[in-house]
């Protein structure tokens, strides 16, 4: 359904230098530096997938989304989405996609939300009947009944984001691009948004491409992650693989009756230690958690033990380090 092959894109950025003299010089002559935003990116996405597209700031995520949504033309490479080349058949193609930019609104600020929806209906030329059934469904599942009559400026961020997502689905797109859909939302709104994304993916088979910095989004939604850094593709595969590959560390926290002898267990590293509690980081490839606990119980009188998997967040940080991005 989505097919990218060897996409590259570079920007020319005017060099800015400090100093009055340099600024005056820049009026007439400017040096440019070329920044390779994307280098030879290729991947395919099948219909009905939810793909998490991740990478640190400035990695090229937005550029890729902009290319895939037909805003930008890449320097080289092929991109076919549903049989269209996005930047060539722009008006035909964009009827099939929905785009949510988390940081920018597509709703009209001073009018009731429902008026924005009506205008979008006209922009996308959605037939009245189809519009009616879609909007009823959206209002119901996103629980917008109480807010569609209020102007956007009176909505909270969470309410607004729900409306934004509804707005991008009015024309029943086959693909939806979500650029940081949960940015700045509280926990409840985040969960509502995630739940909804899952629902439309399951029930309507909408393909979802999601960029985010919140790894919980990825964990809750995406079966597949694509990691990009400094414009190159670093990892493409499912989340479990990633976890297996990099998430072999577990954290064991043990509380025990007062014991002042230092504890040393092979294959572990103590993250913190007090006479009542120790936090150990263990490498499951070298030592099993059960062995560690046995070891501990031999030495001290255990009161409580918890085992945690290293959060995905840390795995990503580790990945960024590993790839030096």
């Amino acid at each position, binding site marked *: 359904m989505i097919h990218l092959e060897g996409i590259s*894109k570079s*920007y*020319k*950025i005017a060099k800015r230098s400090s100093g009055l003299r340099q600024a005056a010089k820049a009026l007439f002559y400017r040096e440019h530096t070329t920044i390779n935003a994307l280098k030879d990116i290729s991947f395919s996405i099948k219909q009905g997938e939810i793909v998490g597209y991740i990478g640190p700031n400035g990695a090229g995520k937005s*550029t890729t989304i*902009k290319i895939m*949504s*037909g*805003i*930008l*033309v890449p320097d080289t490479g092929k991109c076919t989405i549903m049989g269209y080349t996005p*930047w060539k058949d*722009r*008006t*035909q193609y*964009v*009827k099939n*996609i929905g*785009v949510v*930019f988390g940081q*920018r609104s*597509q709703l*009209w*600020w*001073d*009018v009731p939300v429902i*008026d*924005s929806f*009506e*205008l979008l209906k*006209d*922009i*996308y*030329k959605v037939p009245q009947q189809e519009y009616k059934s879609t909007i009823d469904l959206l209002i119901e599942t996103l629980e917008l009944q109480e807010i569609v009559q209020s*102007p956007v400026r009176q909505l909270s961020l969470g309410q607004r984001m729900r409306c934004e997502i509804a707005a991008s689905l009015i024309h029943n797109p086959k693909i939806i691009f979500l650029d940081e859909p949960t940015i700045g939302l509280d926990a409840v709104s985040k969960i509502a948004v995630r739940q909804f994304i899952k629902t439309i993916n399951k029930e309507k088979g909408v393909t979802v491409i999601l960029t985010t910095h919140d790894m919980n989004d990825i964990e809750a939604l995406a079966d597949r992650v694509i990691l990009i850094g400094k414009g190159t593709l670093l990892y493409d595969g499912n989340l479990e693989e990633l976890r297996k590959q990099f998430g072999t560390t577990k954290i064991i926290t043990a509380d025990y009756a007062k014991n002042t002898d230092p504890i040393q267990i092979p294959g572990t590293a103590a993250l913190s230690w007090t006479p009542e509690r120790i936090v150990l980081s263990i490498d499951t490839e070298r030592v099993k958690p059960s062995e560690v606990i046995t070891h501990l119980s031999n030495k001290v009188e255990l009161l409580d033990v918890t085992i945690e998997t290293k959060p995905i967040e840390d795995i990503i940080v580790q990945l960024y380090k590993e790839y030096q991005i």
Partner: protein
Amino acid sequence: MKLYFKYLSIHFKSQMQYRTSFWLLSIGQFFIPFSIFVGLYFLFERFGQIKGWQFFEVALCFAVIHMAFSLSECFARGFDMFSSLVVKGEFDRLLVRPRSTFVQVLGSKFEFTRVGRLLQSVIVLVWALSNLPIEWSTIKAITLALMIVSGVFIFTGIYMLAATMCFWTVQGLEVASIFTDGGREMAQYPLNIYQKWVARFFTYVIPFGTVNYLPLQYILGKGDGNELIHMLTPVLGSLFILPCFLVWQFGVRHYRSTGS
């Protein structure tokens, strides 16, 4: 076109959320050209006429250009304010919608408070017309309407050129107001009172002359026999928007390949 009216109505609804500010701004807009017009009045009070043009004839010039200006500021404001659209990244949003950028930019903003300015110029127009001994015919009435239309097209064209520049730089856009505000100030008088080169510039490069000076010669019967040409000048002037449109398209293409 239908979509344009939908945009119009949603913006009108937004504007009506701020009624007081709407009325205050509209009244303000009424008095800006009013003060200029008072100046014009006293000028003629003192000198009687300029290069064979009487007060009411010049008032007609004034009314037509100000009418065109206020209409285009109201309805083509989207292009006038385009830089903010680019700066905020809102233009990307327009590109992911299945409509032409032209109609979407046009629909991105309206400035209804220009109704004050429009009203002022309508009053001047009516006053001038009722004091001029014109033998009216259908064609003359059509010509008068076309004069205003061509003015709107020319102002819109200049806004589009300025908007296109935003794709390269968002600084230094004041250049454009030399041509819009400046052009309006110049063209409120008949062009023949100026130096030859000024008159030529505003006839052949930015054809403000076709909005009032040239066709008025036909309407007022000042022409030297070329009635048909003078009559058609507003139509020719309107063509100014075509190259502007092409330049705009070029700008959009540039934006999409650089993304800056």
